[in-house]
């Protein structure tokens, strides 16, 4: 669950990235955040992940109040979310399996649990036969599915995808969204930040538009 109440963010450079933005995203929702570049989408994500702190206003994410959160509690917050990046962010020298397992090792999960969980997640994203491949041997769509598997592997309450289809061809893009939709049906909140309006409209769902740091529209696309 995400709740922004009158959130403003002014950077040290003087840029007003968000201006009294308020919105609520409930548990289990499937939401697109759209807007042109520089609209405040990235700031919105950074605030959710507590990479940035708001200048004013309050933010609650998965039951934690971020504007008052101490730095040492940030890992606890991040463990409730899985992040999918536009550029995949896979480690080249690691296999698909290790890339996914890495996210579990990084938070100290037992090796036995990792061995059980990773194959299950790889099967979920349809990569069970590519566990031993390296990222460079995969297509863009496949790489993003590894990214998705990594985001999912620690069983987060919420998936945040930052332009997840920005680096892959349209056909594959739709597949990734389908996969995210499948995950959503299992109860995970999905938040997708994108500027590809065509894809959003063909897919449907709740669409929140940000422009110049303000939430300008919040609509439910009926095609969903």
């Amino acid at each position, binding site marked *: 669950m995400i709740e922004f109440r009158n959130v403003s963010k002014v950077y040290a450079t003087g840029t007003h990235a968000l201006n009294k933005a308020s919105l609520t995203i409930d548990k289990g929702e499937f939401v697109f955040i759209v807007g042109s570049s520089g609209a405040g989408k990235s700031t919105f*994500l950074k605030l959710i992940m507590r990479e940035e702190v708001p200048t004013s206003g309050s933010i609650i994410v998965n039951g934690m109040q971020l504007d008052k959160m101490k730095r040492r509690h940030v890992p606890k917050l*991040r463990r409730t979310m899985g992040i999918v990046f536009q550029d995949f962010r896979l480690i080249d020298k690691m296999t698909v399996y290790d890339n996914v397992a890495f996210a579990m090792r*990084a938070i100290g999960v037992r090796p036995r649990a990792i061995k059980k969980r990773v194959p299950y997640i790889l099967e979920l994203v349809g990569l069970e036969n590519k566990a031993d491949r390296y990222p460079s041997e995969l297509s863009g769509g496949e790489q993003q599915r590894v990214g998705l598997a990594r985001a999912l592997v620690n069983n987060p309450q919420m998936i945040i995808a930052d332009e997840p289809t920005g680096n892959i061809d349209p056909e594959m893009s739709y597949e990734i969204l389908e996969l995210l939709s499948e995950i959503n049906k299992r109860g995970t909140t999905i938040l997708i930040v994108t500027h590809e309006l065509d894809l959003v409209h063909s897919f449907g769902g709740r669409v929140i538009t940000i422009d110049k740091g303000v939430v300008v529209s919040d609509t439910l696309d009926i095609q969903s």
Partner: protein
Amino acid sequence: MRFSGFGYLIKEGIKSIWSNRMMSLASIGVLISCLLLTGTAELLTMTVSYNLESVGGTNVTRVFLEQEVTDLEAVHISDELSRMENVSATAVVTKDEAIKDYQETVGEDIFAQLMGEGNPLPNAIDVTMTDLALYDSTISAILAVDGVESARDTRAIAQKLTDLSELVSTVSLWIVIALVLISVFIISNSIRMTMYSRRFEISIMKSVGATNTFVRIPFVIEGMTIGLISGAISSVVLYFLYDTLTTAITKIMPINLIPYSQVGGFMTLVFIGAGMLIGALGSVVSIGRYLRKEGNELLGW
């Protein structure tokens, strides 16, 4: 943090020493030089205080008698001295005994020929004082006695050794401080190289909620392993160096040396302990700085 992921972190730390081997090698080299220099300074201090104990530790002053004084007369003088204030004991050292002593310390047989008539040494008396603070007045009283020629001022030797010991301690303390700082600096730079080569992984770790402690562990392991290796190599080098070094020193100064077996274990422990501590410190310094700044960014790099 659970213990389960620890094996993985240790493996990662040791792996990066190899993948970053040029820098690791440089760190190990610098650390070894630092440890050896520090160790040599420490050994020197230890040797000086060891000698100080044998010289200044006793309150015995050797009083030399005039050449003409016979053995019997020496006993009489000794008797007289023992009745003086501040003198707790006296012992006659005959000229032949003195020659024997020389022979034993130096180990040359020519002294044997000097025994008896040809002995050039005077008879002497070892005087033990109760209170060294009264040294001056006691000595002047002793020198006033008939037949007494001179007294060996062990206080002067003790004083010289104490001064030397203090000088060595002070100088080596500064050397140690400087070298520790240099080592920490070099190691932290080496670790920083590893960190930059792994900053991508760090950002992923942080994005999935790894704690700073968890991110830090492989780097601390890396630093401590570098320290351990350096400490171990330094100990081995010192073992071989000690012999050469002490032989050279005894040629210049006839001093008593501490046998290696008495200091070797201690020095090895100190080397390994100090090496690991410096290694850990170096990595904590660099990773701390990194995590406070760049390490916190997930999207923006």
